């Protein structure tokens, strides 16, 4: 606005002005009495190998965790279904964290309610909260299904969701046929991905059982249920469009089980609705008739996969997030294997174009040492991508490695994958560790690039490593989630993100004589 009479800086520049700097220096008298030398020594020690060892021996405290809890994943799963209201049974603050967390990542509203349990509920149980909550939320938000998950509190006092929901029906608060799916998701077990799994399985089994249908694998081929596809805890709305594009290229019939891209990528039309898109509820029982199910996050969706093989008697092909050329090749083979359809020419052409792009950029990626942080399935995908372009994964940290979550298998798979390439020879996989561990790793054994969520930015800054934001949550960059990272197109997006960061760094750090125009 050129008419501005005054320059009004925001805090990024305002508080760097002399008067504020002085004010802050004056404040140091209140701080713990530490000399500058002591501070510098402590900082240096925290960056030393000696401290790294101490840090890795730390048993009791978690510092800067890289995971959220089960109900957060449950909410995402619930929003993958048509007109479904996520309902968190427990004390209300959890729900408010979940809504903020998801909204900050997707830059979209998150409809979710809580049963707001308080001390009375702690003593007498949360039944009346759940019943009142169902009544109020259905009246207020008019969902077609409610998906209830629990918090720690409800779990510790042992609330029984199934009987409480039954009682709500008996009392006439909800009608007999109004669907209320549910699952148990204490956050002292698992993480956001196991919560996603629990709710996904909860919804599939609930809708299937109440339909009274009998699973007949393959019988749906003619009626449109040929293939089921699950993306899992998917922080990229762009990935839904990309997988649909790939499936359409195959010309196969398919059902996406859990599609929250509508809710997290809805248009600004001038009118906000609570629910956008999602898998149609009626499609869920029919999905039991499909030829098979393709799961794109095999660690995340473990229980759901077991359910589908067990109860629906379907063939399940489970992959980790299909990143890069090799990852996408596996995806195409899996689709072809499940449907019996040939590989579409359009995708093969696309593959060729992306391979071309990779060859164009490979000189800048070769030998780049990389640190990776993420959820298991994403990490497998990223490791694969790094190896195929000659980047060297060095430190791989997965906070999400609870014992109950088959960490051994993930670690084994990651290590086996790394062993397939000389570029993986320096890598170490840390399961159940946090970002404070990662900080020690970055400082003691430096890398060129870090790839992970926004939470990694603090450690990356301490170690002066550029951070490429991939995964969940990404709070401090806009629209990353709108670009797919899976499929060939996703490989191209990942490639551009990474190679252009490398080139930016070259320009930023160059000494002048090599400030090249052409790269």
């Amino acid at each position, binding site marked *: 606005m050129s008419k501005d009479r005054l320059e*009004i800086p925001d805090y990024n520049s305002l508080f760097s002005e002399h008067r504020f700097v002085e004010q802050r220096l004056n404040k140091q008298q209140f701080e713990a009495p530490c000399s500058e030398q002591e501070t510098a020594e402590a900082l240096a020690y925290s960056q030393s190998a000696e401290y790294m060892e101490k840090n890795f021996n730390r048993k009791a405290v978690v510092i800067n965790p890289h995971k959220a809890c089960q109900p*957060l994943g449950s909410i995402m799963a619930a929003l993958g279904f048509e007109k479904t209201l996520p309902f968190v049974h427990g004390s*209300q*603050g959890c729900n408010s964290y979940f809504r903020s967390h998801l909204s*900050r990542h997707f830059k979209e509203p998150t409809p979710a309610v809580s049963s707001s349990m308080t001390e009375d509920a702690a003593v007498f149980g949360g039944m009346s909260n759940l019943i009142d909550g169902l009544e109020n939320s259905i009246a207020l938000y008019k969902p077609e299904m409610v998906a209830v998950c629990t918090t720690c509190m409800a779990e510790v006092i042992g609330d029984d969701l199934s009987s409480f929901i039954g009682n709500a029906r008996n009392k006439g608060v909800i009608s007999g046929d109004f669907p209320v799916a549910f699952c148990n998701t204490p956050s*002292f077990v698992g993480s956001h991905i196991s919560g996603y799994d629990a709710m996904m399985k909860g919804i599939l089994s609930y809708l299937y059982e109440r339909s009274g249908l009998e699973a007949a694998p393959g019988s749906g081929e003619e009626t449109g249920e040929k293939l089921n596809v699950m993306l899992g805890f998917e922080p990229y709305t762009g990935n839904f469009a990309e997988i649909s594009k790939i499936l359409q290229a195959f010309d196969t019939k398919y059902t996406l089980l859990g599609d929250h891209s509508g809710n997290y990528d809805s248009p600004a039309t001038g009118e906000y609705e609570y629910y956008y898109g999602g898998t149609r509820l009626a499609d869920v029982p029919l999905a039991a008739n499909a030829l098979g199910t393709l799961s794109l996050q095999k660690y995340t969706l473990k229980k759901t996969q077991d359910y589908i093989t067990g109860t629906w008697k379907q063939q399940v092909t489970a992959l980790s997030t299909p990143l890069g050329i090799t990852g996408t090749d596996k995806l195409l083979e899996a689709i072809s294997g499940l449907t019996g359809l040939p590989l579409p020419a359009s995708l093969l052409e696309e593959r060729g174009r992306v391979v071309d792009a990779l060859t164009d950029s490979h000189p800048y990626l070769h030998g780049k040492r990389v640190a990776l942080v993420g959820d298991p399935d994403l990490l497998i995908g990223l490791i694969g991508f790094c190896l195929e372009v000659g980047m060297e994964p060095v430190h791989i940290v997965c906070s999400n490695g609870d014992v109950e979550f088959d960490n051994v298998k993930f670690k084994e798979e990651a290590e086996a994958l790394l062993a397939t390439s000389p570029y993986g020879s320096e890598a170490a996989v840390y399961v159940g560790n946090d970002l404070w561990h990662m900080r020690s790793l970055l400082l003691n054994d430096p890398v060129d690039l870090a790839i992970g969520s926004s939470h990694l930015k603090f450690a990356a800054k301490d170690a002066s490593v550029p951070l490429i934001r991939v995964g969940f949550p990404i709070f401090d960059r806009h629209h990353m989630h709108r670009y797919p990272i899976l499929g060939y197109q996703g490989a191209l997006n990942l490639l551009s993100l990474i190679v252009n960061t490398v080139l930016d760094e070259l320009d930023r750090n160059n000494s002048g004589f090599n400030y090249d125009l052409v790269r």
Partner: protein
Amino acid sequence: MDPVRKVDFDSEACGSQAPKSKPCPRPKPGEAAGGCSFDGAQITLLPIMDAAHLVHGPIACAGNSWESRGTLSSGPSLSQYGFATDLNDSDIIFGGEKKLKESIDYIAGRFAPPAIFVYSTCVTALIGEDMDAVCKEAGDRLGIPVVPVNSPGFVGSKNLGNRLAGDALLQYVIGTGDPEPEIPLGVNLIGEYNIAGEMWDIEKLMNSAGISVTSRITGDARYKEITWAHHAKVNMVVCSRALLGLAREMEAKYGIPFFEGSFYGAKETTYSLRQMAYLMNDREMERRVDRLTEREESRLAQDLRPYRKMLKGKKAVLYTGGVKSWSVISALKELGVQVVGVGTNKSTEDDVRRIADRVGDDTEYIPEGGASRILKTVRERKADIMIAGGRNMYVAMKEQIPFIDINQERHKAYAGYEGLLRLAKELTYSLANPVWRLAASPAPWDKGVPYDR
């Protein structure tokens, strides 16, 4: 406006809904409600920047919340670390006290903080962890204060958590230290959290009038300065809903007079500065404040002129918490913006009274949340802009309503005279951005719809 110091404590802090037996109203099941008491307690204490804040509970209470408040630090950053004991299911059965003790020891050994705040969560409260005993034992052994904050999520709302944090400060921190003799005594700022650096603007103003800040409770605070808060001459309660109780207790215990004030808008800022000088009982200071405020107000009036022209007659719906519900109204009125709807769900009775003093009869009160309720008001009252917090921001975007963020995630400081100028600029920018014209107009091939709504 007189300093408020009457009626009973509970209804004062919680409004007319306060049930007899409980300090704050209960949340209603089945709504998309706000934060919990744990959240509230953490929010109040996290701005103590050099302290370590350890969450005793399962991972996610910290995992979902660490480093997500825009409360700025001028130095130490320990408060930004996410510390958690990460209880798992076997800890739930066998107890997590050992883990807590070891965590405290580790933090003390590695980070040498001046104090450690330990927060209970739903789980540790339910399984009956004796946090107070562990904290006391560790504090005695380590020689630093280890402060238990007993505010598990389920005890109630965020506001109750703010108060419980205030109780922890009173019980364990305030009164335990004395300032160096050369530190001038003045005003404690209570309930100012230095979001987007607002506290720095306020402090600069106070210093220009010769008023010194004794303790910041807690925006950009250092632990040590809070230990001597009881030496202050005046308490100013910046956010009344959160920590009014703390000010009351300090008045009773240490005889420190307090008042509730705000720094949103020139009038409120001037009032607050005057009130400080008046309660300090210092004629010379009062004269200095008068000179400062006159100078700043007239300079501001000059600077605001182009913005006032653009903002005059615009209508806003304000949906925010506590003190901002009324204080921002004053700021908006000074800019010529009419508030046609205002959220009251987190306001005290006095806040509501102050809202009523500042708005016309036709302003709609929005007592409880839910996006649709706010949107209904915006539509019915034909508001031009919505002023609210992050969780409602994206709803506004869907509805193509110009929006500014006034809560914890904002990156603009709106306090004081310069803050009002910044608010004017942000309002103008938000209203005038060409993207609204684009959003509201149909695609060129959709004929028959007028270009402007």
